[in-house]
């Protein structure tokens, strides 16, 4: 897919790998290349996500968004370049280590604990934040952990699920599962939240409620990366937008600027759509 | 030295053949139906007992009392007349002598019916359920089948004689131009090996060259797409389960002269066959066959006294050891596809 899209000029001049990361940048994707055999899935990706901002990465299907996400969370090793989160290189780290550094993730299809209650779903990540990656905590009962319980209930109240706290998480609707997953990420107070197509496969109604929820979170100033191919979702949320096409960054800037960029329109209209 | 190695190679072949045949069926079922079948060893055992049952039928006797003659204890003499020989004469005697290979004819339809009944009656309800539940239900089924056989045929092994003409040994060494009588090999084991090659060849040819086989292979690769083409893949898979049962059954029939069957036979072979499947690569038919022979041969080498002197007890654990190493270093097995059940 990537090869069929005409390669556009990179929007920014190539930054040398040794560039010093500015103070207010939380995540720095520094000069990342990723090749699969002969396929250049990612080329010259240099991305700086600023503290407290919502940074959207958009692009038509096959633009390399998923590959970039997998490189960021360390699941794929870049062919060259590095991903630096808050001074730590993420490449090669295990998912739980990355989470413990303060990166939480929302999946395309909500990943929740279907067999546990809604409340337990939210308490579990709170334990991960308090107790770390592993702790044998088997002599107190869950019920006695009042602090964590109250925190989880407040979180559920925030996302509007407190009424269903005793329900089986597997029985929730798609939209409610997404809310639950968001609550599970937010209770960890992550420094960076990754959202992978948070409204994919949702009905119009669920999409709108999810956008409302994301707007509500936005006011708290948490740094977020949203990966989307639906532009509509992004323009109402993002502070800054990076447009990918054919594995390259073709535009980057404020929503208004990106919306009017002819290269972006070409990529969307002339590319996959 | 060369003779020793060659002999051990041969010694591993008959067990390897049995492993390969069972593992082939296991893989076929896993690849087509996605079911982990712990009852597959029981099918091998049922096949073996088809041979036992057939021989019992052939050797049924009528007992008549002859009042004109007296036994040494003064009672009327019992005259036993084998029914088959009474009906067919000398041909009956030949039938009895060759009961094991002839019982294949009985085993094929019986195993087909058992296999199809098993799939339609029980296994089909478990396609969508987790592997753990598949293991559990087929494990339960294996117990039931073994216990039915125990209730019918008793708990003790029942030896099955091989045909008198096939009892000798073949001078393999001479065949390969070595000195005569250096390497001899029991004829029946050789027959078993050749037989298993024929079956394996037949299964592969069936999958390779028939339309039916092509559809099944396509279904193994991507069930959904084949289903979308409007092909009734489920019915074909049912038949494949029947075929896997027949293969296991035939393997069991022909194995009876080598090892007197009893009701635990199935589980004894199943555990090893699973290891074989894992070593070969879950879902890979050539892998299952190759690993079957490989492990049979390895086992035979490990039981050499020279080897045991270096590593005591290695013959007891070699197969499992190989499985552990393979699972840890190369979870998809020797010939498995990438991503197939790699977890």
């Amino acid at each position, binding site marked *: 897919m990537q090869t069929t899209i005409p390669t556009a000029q990179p929007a920014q001049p190539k930054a040398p790998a040794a560039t010093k990361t500015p103070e207010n940048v939380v995540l720095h994707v520094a000069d990342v290349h990723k090749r699969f055999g002969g396929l250049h899935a990612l080329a010259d990706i240099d991305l700086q996500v600023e503290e407290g901002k919502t940074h959207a990465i958009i692009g038509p299907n096959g633009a390399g968004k998923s590959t970039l996400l997998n490189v960021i969370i360390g699941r794929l090793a870049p062919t060259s370049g590095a991903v630096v989160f808050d001074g730590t290189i993420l490449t090669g780290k*295990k*998912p*739980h280590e990355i989470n*413990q550094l303060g990166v939480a993730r929302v*999946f395309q299809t909500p*990943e929740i*604990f*279907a067999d*546990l209650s809604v409340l*337990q779903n939210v*308490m*579990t*990540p709170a*334990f*991960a934040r308090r107790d770390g*990656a*592993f702790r044998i*905590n*088997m002599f*107190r*009962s*869950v*019920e*006695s*952990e009042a602090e964590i319980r109250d925190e989880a209930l407040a979180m559920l109240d925030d996302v509007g699920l407190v009424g269903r706290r005793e329900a089986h998480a597997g029985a929730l609707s798609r939209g409610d599962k997404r809310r639950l997953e968001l609550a*599970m990420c937010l209770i960890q107070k992550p420094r960076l939240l990754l959202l992978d197509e948070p409204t994919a496969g949702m009905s119009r109604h669920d999409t709108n409620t999810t956008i409302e929820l994301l707007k509500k979170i936005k006011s708290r100033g948490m740094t977020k990366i949203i990966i989307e191919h639906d532009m509509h979702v992004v323009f109402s949320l993002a502070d800054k937008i990076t447009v990918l096409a054919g594995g390259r960054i073709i535009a980057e800037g404020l929503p208004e600027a990106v919306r009017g960029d002819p290269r972006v329109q070409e990529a969307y209209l002339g590319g996959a759509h | 030295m060369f003779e020793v190695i060659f002999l051990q190679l041969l010694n591993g072949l008959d067990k390897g053949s049995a492993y390969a045949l069972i593992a082939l069926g296991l893989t076929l079922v896993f690849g087509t139906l996605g079911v*982990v079948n712990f009852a597959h060893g029981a099918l091998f055992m049922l096949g073996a007992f088809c041979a036992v049952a057939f021989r019992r039928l052939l050797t049924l006797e009528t007992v008549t009392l002859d009042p004109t003659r007296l036994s040494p204890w003064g009672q009327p003499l019992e005259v036993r007349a084998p029914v088959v020989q009474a009906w067919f004469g000398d041909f009956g005697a030949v039938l009895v002598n060759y009961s094991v290979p002839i019982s294949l004819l009985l085993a094929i339809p019986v195993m087909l019916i058992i296999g199809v009944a098993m799939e339609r009656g*029980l296994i089909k*309800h478990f396609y969508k359920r987790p*592997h*753990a*539940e598949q*293991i*559990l*239900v087929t*494990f*339960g*089924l*294996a*117990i*039931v089948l073994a*216990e*039915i056989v*125990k*209730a019918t045929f008793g*708990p003790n092994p029942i030896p099955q004689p091989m045909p008198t003409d096939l009892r000798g040994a073949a001078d393999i060494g001479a065949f390969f131009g070595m000195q005569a009588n250096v390497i001899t090999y029991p004829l029946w084991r050789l027959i078993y090996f050749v037989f298993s090659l024929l079956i394996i060849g037949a299964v592969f040819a069936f999958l390779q060259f028939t339309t039916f086989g092509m559809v099944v292979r396509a279904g193994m690769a991507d069930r959904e797409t084949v289903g979308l083409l409007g092909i009734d893949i489920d019915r074909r898979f049912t038949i494949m389960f029947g075929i896997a049962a027949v293969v296991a059954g035939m393997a069991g029939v022909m194995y009876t002269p080598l090892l007197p069957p009893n009701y635990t036979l199935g589980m004894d072979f199943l*555990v090893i066959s699973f*290891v074989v499947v*894992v070593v070969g690569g879950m879902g890979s038919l050539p892998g299952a066959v190759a690993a079957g022979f490989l492990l049979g041969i390895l086992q035979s080498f490990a039981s050499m006294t020279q080897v045991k002197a270096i590593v*005591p*007890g290695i013959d*007891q*654990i070699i197969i*499992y050891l190989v*499985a*552990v190493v393979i*699972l*840890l270093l190369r*979870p998809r097995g020797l010939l498995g596809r990438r991503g197939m*059940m790699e977890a």
Partner: protein
Amino acid sequence: MTTFMSRRDLILFFGFAAVVLLLPILAQPFGAAYPDLLQRFMIFGIFAIGFNILFGLTGYLSFGHAAFFGVGSYAAMWSFKLLSTNALPAIIFAVVIAGVFALAIGFVSLRRSGIYFSILTLAFAQMSYNLAYSVLTPITNGETGLRMAIADPRVLDRLFFEAPVAQPVPSLFGFSLSGWNGFFFSAIFLLATFFLAMRITNSPFGMMLKGIKSNQNRMNYTGFNTRPYTLTAFVISGMLAGLAGALLVVTDPLAGAERMRWTASGEVVLMTILGGVGTLVGPVLGAWIIKYFENIFSSFNDNILSAFFSFLPEGAREIAVTVSSKFVGDGWHLTLGLVFVLIVVFLPGGIMEGVRRIAARFSKADRDGTARERRLAPKAAE
């Protein structure tokens, strides 16, 4: 107290304890009130609870748990032979050895999940079994099994007492552990095990294990290193199997390799599934039912059966006896297999799920009843 145990848990625990300790009376109507059988109830209850801590909470299906049971038996027997006839050091020794063994096997096996984990554990158990019968004969005494002998060193005992003249038997600081003493001794361990399982299930640690069963991927992305969690569960589970194995040797001083066979591993799976995976009481219930019917059914013979069917006319009675005799006595495993298949097909949650379904039906009927009353009530109020 509230932070320690909730009211509901206290009631459950004391209810369970009461049932266990009163078993010698409660089991009388069932003809099961003799120490030998009840002791096996306790031992296999411990085994099943331990197995459930792994399978029920984390979802990892081990098909080799009998190996830990067997290791526990051998370890306890060696303690009887080398150290003392006192059961306490034997049990401690057995639990430690089984734990070390489980740590090693779990460390390797838990690198894989699903069916591969099952096969790995099965492979390790078969290796242990085969080795116990062959090269390890000096330790296991092979097919004959390991027994205590008068000539054993028993260094601790020799320090304090004269060398015995009679066949030594396990004891507890001089108290005999045969008969009912042995039952109560084992019962205490069952209660302790039940208590531990309860604590684990209700603790954050237990919730993590359930999270692993439900969605391991989410656990990882939530910041948990799942491997040490599953390994801890595996080791606890193996130690409890070792405890059960040791207790069996205390009551019946013979350790044999047969207890390590895959059939024995399969049996504990059956017990847990039959009673109810992931529940507290279920595994114990499953163990008791299987051990009870094993005992009762295997003692049935044609005479008992024909007495049972004596109400039938002659011909029908013979048929009934012939058919049913296939399912009892030696054929008891056939019944067990059939019941097991039916349970997995129709009631995957085991007996406990059945109980819950019936209870739900009743309470639903109850709620319907009250709802109807309420619907009628306003009219009356008007």
